[in-house]
């Protein structure tokens, strides 16, 4: 397992902890306190300490680039669905024209979590699959 895969595993664990923590705290303390679970996101910052001496080669860079693209696409999708979904639920079902201010922070964090989770999973999957170099 190389440094990129170790970082990816850390990403999967921390992002899963964020989501699980949020849904554990939500029924107990409500939506504002539940966002405290997003603190697990900060642990991902230690990923930079993993394998600092390892130099990535063309395959590592290729996989990282593809995984980042997949993460960005999933994050964009999650953010748009989160924004429009919230508006739809609030307006269509509750007939209200205002969205609770804390929703924006939660949706932003959702987008960030989806980005790192998708990127990490994509890295783990791509290392086990056939990959072609960009100019192959």
């Amino acid at each position: 397992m190389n440094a990129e895969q170790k970082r990816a595993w850390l990403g999967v664990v921390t992002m899963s902890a964020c989501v699980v923590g949020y849904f554990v705290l939500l029924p107990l303390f409500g939506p504002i306190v539940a966002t405290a679970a997003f603190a697990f996101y900060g642990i991902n910052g230690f990923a930079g300490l993993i394998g600092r001496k390892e130099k990535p080669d063309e395959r590592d860079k290729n996989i990282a680039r593809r995984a980042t693209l997949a993460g960005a696409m999933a994050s964009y999708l999650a953010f748009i669905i989160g924004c429009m979904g919230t508006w739809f639920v609030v307006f269509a079902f509750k007939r209200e024209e205002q969205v609770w201010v804390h929703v924006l922070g939660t949706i932003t964090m959702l987008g960030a979590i989806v980005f790192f989770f998708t990127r990490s999973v994509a890295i783990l999957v791509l290392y086990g699959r056939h990959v072609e170099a960009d100019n192959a």
Partner: protein
Amino acid sequence: MPEITNGIRRLRFDHDEMTQEELALRVACTRQTIIALEAGKYTPSLALAFRIARAFNKRVEDVFQYEVPIKE
């Protein structure tokens, strides 16, 4: 199935049983990439393909073979 196959494993053994680590050092990539190449899980860039061929004193087409996919 990959369209490009290679004989890296055979060539390594023909060159005094060169280890994957040695080849990786010679062609400036990681051992994991050599493993992926031998397993047919990675199609290298042209630059890496040339470096590998030169490490064995061979031409690129002696190391890598292009197989035309069979259409059903």
